[in-house]
């Protein structure tokens, strides 16, 4: 009996590990059997194709990565035609990350995807710092998060996960609004705002000037956000933010996360997710604790 099985919304995961949206793709199927993951999370899909932002799009900084990709994606039609059939062949849960520029657009995107088999959950990306008039514009206002979640709750029976931004005054307030509107779970955190400047040219290193900051540097920030939100809500949390080791993953679970996602670390160690799955299982065995009891087991 696998001790690390979890229930997340209407999904059952064989283990509590997935990948963070935008940091992973079917390319990695050449390296390992992707069905070993508890779930797969796609890059964010939008109603129309998005070319993405002008380069320079990424810059490595101290213990982290700045990006301003700008949700480059082929759009929902092409996703359904090309990517979804490939994802559907993989024997694990599929979380489709989506973004749109209005509540109605979000709803019609979900409606379109709801006609397709092979999708287990939607991760509602209302926290991308790199696109104007969508993404984070939704994720910072509690009332809008409530209205959007409620509308999507009325639209689909599939698991709804709202992905939250740390770039807000009160993340717990937003989390509660999402929960009250019927979200099945929350994903946190998306990237922090960040920037870097070339001191010789005095120009920002990212073309977009400001980008999203990820990687090990943001782990303590993410952890305290997860801890705070876990204490404020009852629905499960999919935690992410700099997770780069088994120990990192365990910290988030102990802080109250039901599942975790590996993001930037995929670029450093593409087999990191598998090592973390094994490590969590080993920890549960060696500490003689069930995974369910480990969640939120922080001692204050």
């Amino acid at each position, binding site marked *: 009996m696998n001790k690390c099985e979890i229930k997340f919304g209407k999904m059952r995961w064989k283990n509590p590990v997935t990948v963070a949206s935008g940091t992973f*793709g079917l*390319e990695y199927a050449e390296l390992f059997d992707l069905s070993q993951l508890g779930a797969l999370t796609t890059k964010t899909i939008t109603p129309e194709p998005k070319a993405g932002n002008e380069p320079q*799009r*990424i*810059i*490595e900084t101290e213990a982290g990565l700045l990006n301003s990709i700008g949700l*480059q994606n082929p759009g929902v039609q092409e996703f359904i035609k090309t990517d979804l059939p490939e994802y559907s062949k993989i024997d694990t849960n599929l979380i489709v990350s989506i973004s749109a520029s209005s509540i109605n657009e979000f709803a019609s995107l979900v409606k379109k995807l709801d006609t397709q088999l092979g999708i287990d959950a939607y991760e509602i990306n209302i926290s991308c710092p790199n696109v104007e008039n969508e993404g984070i514009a939704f994720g910072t206002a509690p009332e809008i998060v409530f209205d959007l979640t409620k509308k999507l709750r009325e639209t689909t029976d599939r698991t709804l996960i709202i992905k939250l931004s740390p770039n807000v005054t009160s993340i717990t307030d937003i989390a509660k609004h999402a929960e009250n509107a019927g979200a099945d779970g929350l994903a946190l955190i998306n990237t922090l705002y960040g920037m870097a400047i070339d001191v010789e040219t005095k120009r920002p290193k990212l073309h977009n000037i400001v980008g999203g900051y990820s990687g090990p540097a943001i782990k303590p920030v993410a952890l305290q956000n997860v801890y705070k939100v876990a204490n404020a809500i009852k629905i499960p949390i999919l935690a992410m933010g700099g997770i780069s080791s088994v120990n990192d993953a365990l910290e988030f679970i102990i802080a109250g996360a039901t599942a975790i996602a590996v993001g930037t670390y995929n*670029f450093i160690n593409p087999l990191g997710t598998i090592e973390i799955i094994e490590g969590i299982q080993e920890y549960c065995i060696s500490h003689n604790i069930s995974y369910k009891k480990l969640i939120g087991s922080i001692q204050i």
Partner: protein
Amino acid sequence: MYFKKIPVLKVESVNDEYFVLRIRDKELTQNIKPGQFFQIKDPDVAIPLLPRPFGVYDIKEDVLSFLIKKVGESTKNLSILEEGHIIQLLGPLGNGFPVAQNKKVLIASGGIGYAPMPYLEQKLKEAGNEVWFYHGGQSSNDVFCDDVQNCTEDGSCGHAGLVTEHIENCFDSMDVDVVYACGPELMLQALSVLCNERNIPIYVSLERIMACGVGACCGCVIKIKENGKVVYKKVCKDGPVFGGAKVIWDE
């Protein structure tokens, strides 16, 4: 594509700026196209975080070599690795150069852009091509082989001046069918102009800051002309080799 942790076979210093990193592995040395690259990192080093991409320099039996220039912390760290130290490699990655058959071809490289060219030269010769090889650098420090036409800006080795000027002077007498180039972007741009004027296909290998190396993150895109439109292409997966005429060069 493989992801492997492998002991360093040898790190050989070329001079104070360049070194050759060698590893031995049967799988990794199979079916590598010239111009393909590997993402390499010392897993013991936490910062810098990301691996760095390096083009394949040479394959002899099961020994895979990379010619690397020390430009930052990652490359400096790699330059002092001892034999047996475990490094991680992800690859082979990218599309690689299309290898012409029985043609007259010109290879042009600049600085560390020399790295993928000896292996390309070998493959081109095996495919029956007649190969001219021109290489340019700032000084004799940037020259790696006496068997190619070397140019240095300070005149310390080979022809004095830019390699592009030297190629331009003798281009029309050579009757070249295809050009392969890797080096500074201004050089690649100048060569692309020369080739376009003469209707000669040119393949350029580009370099960009990369994160995933496999096409997942969309971090390393460049602008390419395709069917009358400008589109973003990933240097790691759609490249690093592109038709020079299609690249929209940075201003």
